[in-house]
């Protein structure tokens, strides 16, 4: 385990340096808080980076109104416990016009409730840098991201126009209209994240641990029925299965996995053993080979 500890230390040191660089370089950075495990690690790293001073960023959460109930409860608890300042944005026009994950189409739903909502929040609060917990091991186009990733006007990502990023010398300057996305845990893997959560005893959402939950089977995915908005088929009844989640998002679009892992240590064991990619449980990613790249070029995180 000595090597694991050393790897985590090296990753942690580098992430802290990036967070400090962000705080020192931008007028108004925010930390994208999506309530998941990566966000939890980011938040913990930010505490370490600026201790004994408080975290110098506000948190931003894009609420699609379709998150798991337990996520919102957890979010509010973390914010209160740590005395943080949280911005929540929902695309109200989207809600008013009845956009939802069932009848709108997943891509269009994501564009309106996530991408557009994010762009609104960044513009409304004049945010020049948004820090996120994306990792290069998540998805192919994410493997191509810089640590400091430039966005053009309209928050668009142009993969052909990325700044060459050399050594640990970061160009954080912005021309008018540009903004930055910052990814301090780019080089971490899913297993690193879990090992770090275990090592640092970071509190994470209970949805990550196995428990009997009401689920329906759709295709080869297990969907948890979190409230009565979920449209059940005629005669269909959710069954109670022992499941947990590898990633957290909108409940109708994030599938559960059957698991018996009830503690952080058991989750680490399971992640170590499992050989399927984390985002296999994300319904949206399967849509097209390049869906993440397309979404990012429109301003998605």
């Amino acid at each position, binding site marked *: 385990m000595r090597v694991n500890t050393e790897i985590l230390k090296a990753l942690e040191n580098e992430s802290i340096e990036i967070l400090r660089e962000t705080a020192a370089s931008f007028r108004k950075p925010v930390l994208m808080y999506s309530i998941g495990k990566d966000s939890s690690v980011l938040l913990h790293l930010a505490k370490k980076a600026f201790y004994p001073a408080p975290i110098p960023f506000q948190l931003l959460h894009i609420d699609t109104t379709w998150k798991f109930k337990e996520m919102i409860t957890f979010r509010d608890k973390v914010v209160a416990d740590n005395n943080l300042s949280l911005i929540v944005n929902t695309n109200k026009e989207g809600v008013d016009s009845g956009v939802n994950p069932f009848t709108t189409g997943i891509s269009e739903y994501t564009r309106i409730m996530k991408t557009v909502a994010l762009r609104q929040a960044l513009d409304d609060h004049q945010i020049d840098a948004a820090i996120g917990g994306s990792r290069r*091991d998540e998805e192919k186009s994410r493997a191509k991201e810089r640590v400091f990733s430039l966005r053009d006007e309209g928050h668009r990502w142009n993969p052909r126009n990325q700044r060459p990023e050399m050594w640990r010398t970061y160009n954080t300057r912005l021309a008018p209209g540009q903004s930055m996305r910052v990814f301090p845990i780019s080089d971490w893997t899913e297993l690193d994240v879990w090992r770090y959560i275990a090592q640092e005893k970071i509190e994470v959402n209970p949805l990550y641990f196995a428990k009997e939950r009401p689920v329906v089977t759709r295709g080869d995915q297990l969907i948890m029925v979190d409230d009565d908005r979920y449209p059940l088929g005629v005669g269909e009844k959710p069954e109670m299965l022992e499941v947990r989640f590898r990633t957290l998002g909108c409940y109708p679009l994030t599938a559960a996995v059957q698991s018996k892992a009830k503690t952080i240590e058991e989750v680490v064991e399971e992640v170590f053993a499992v*050989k399927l990619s984390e985002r296999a449980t994300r319904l949206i990613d399967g849509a097209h080979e390049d869906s993440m790249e397309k979404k990012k070029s429109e301003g998605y995180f």
Partner: protein
Amino acid sequence: MQTSVLRLLTCGSVDDGKSTLIGRLLVETDSVPHDTVGAARHVRRAGSTIAAGDIDFSLLTDGLEAEREQGITIDVAYRSMSLLDGRRLIISDAPGHEQYTRNMAVAASRADIAIVLIDATKGVRTQTLRHLMICNVMGVSRVIVAINKLDAVNYSHEVFSAIKDDLLSHMSRFDLPDIDFIPMSALVGDNVVAHSTNMPWYAGSSLLESIQSWQPKKSEEVTMRARVQSIVRAEDFRGVSTTIHRGKVSVGDQVRIHPSNQVATIATIVADMKKVEKADEGDAVTLVFQPEVDITRGDLIASVNEEISGSDRFSAHLVWLNEEALIHSRSYLLISGPTQIPVIVTKIRHSIDVNTGEEKPANTLVMNEIGVVEIATNAPLALLPYKESREFGNFILVDRVTSESVGAGMIRHALRRGENITYQAYEVDKSARESAKNQRAKIIWLTGLSGSGKSTIANALEKRLHALGMHSYVLDGDNLRMGLNVDLGFTAEDRAENVRRTSEVGKLMLDAGLIVITALVSPFEVDRQRARSVFNEGDFIEVFVDTPVDVCISRDPKGLYKKASEGKIPNFTGVGQDYEKPTNPEITINGEVDTQISTEQILKFIL
């Protein structure tokens, strides 16, 4: 020194099999999720000849749509895998295409190990030598030459040896002592992870073994160095956050802060949200000094006994990254870690032909070119030679208007000139001369298109000043070009130098207590910004003589527009070259109004 995380770079020409090699390495070490491998077995890109059910390894690494369409790697992708001893390997898959050489340099800047692929059916190519050259300049410690596709030449020992000998004959130009040659077939899997039985003549390591056996050199006892990222303030607490980039540090150590040269003791080290006794190389910490010192972002913290004298002149290798070529004499921003400072490239000594290693005289560097340059900084910097420290020897150059990263530099050494010159303070100074003349010295910088009326206004203004008994001088662009600037033309480089010299002469005249009026087209914002930066705030007055181009053409006092439109003058502002309007001038003059009115407008501002 980080020893638990290794960084590896793969390079080679297009179609040498890089993606296949990385894919093979990842799959055979079980480092890729099984659903991703499954997709690579059934997804096929257009024109693919890979049999159904076989893995298309390139699908594991080429992540961009355009890359899949064109079947090439455009940008660096990063992949992680665990080595058998538990260390982490981060692989940067760099593009092979010549036009993306800069992305290859991005990957090389942090790499410990480079795999250089050679296609056994094609042998050593220019791109091989180019990549070795970049690895060499970028300080990659270990090179593994993978001679690939040996299955296509019947696993011939002769072919392998011939390629190896050919490459070794070029090696004298490189300073790459730690080099391995491995015969391989990434497609079949020979010598990638497991030893091949197809090449009994080869007894060396497989690629994976060769990577695993590498250990970074233990850094000898080195003195501590760190740069200040920011100041941390909390109740009863004031510290500086920093990463210890070299050496170690303990509570009680004496350090010196540069450039202010203050000595202090480390009273507290904060890490992991608690006080600790010591910190190692690589640790991100917060330090509290006793006594409290005046310190700011970018300052250097070093062991007290280390002799550090900053320099403001450096020789450096420069890789040019931007589509717009390097313009010497133009002001760029240098960034090195948290340090940011304006610099100019004073000299391009030569560019390096990456194919032959030959040094060629050069006036500029274009994208993907590497050269040796001299740079001058606005204030002394404590940078180390890159060979000694990648961390303190690297820098990037940033365009001050677009904020793009345009160059990547590696310090060769500080230039003595910087140290041997000390500022001589005059006992009779600017304010003494101003009082003797009973006036405030100023520089009035007229900018505008040719024919906009700058020289006319300059003359009229000086006549008025003279009549008021004031002391002034006009620096007219054309007149300067007959003497001081006789060697300069009208390219962007020459215009930058023209502005630089004029502002320096203007500065001397200002120091002499004069009111200086310049009449220069000075078409580029960045050059005018640099001119402004030479002067104290309030002394530099930018006057934009705003005259529509058609009015200038109809005036054409020197017949230049006519010549330019006939193609006799290249780089003529308004015809072959753009004029960048000032964004924030002190005064804007309507160039179509009477000269007397414009003159009074300026006079009112300065008196």
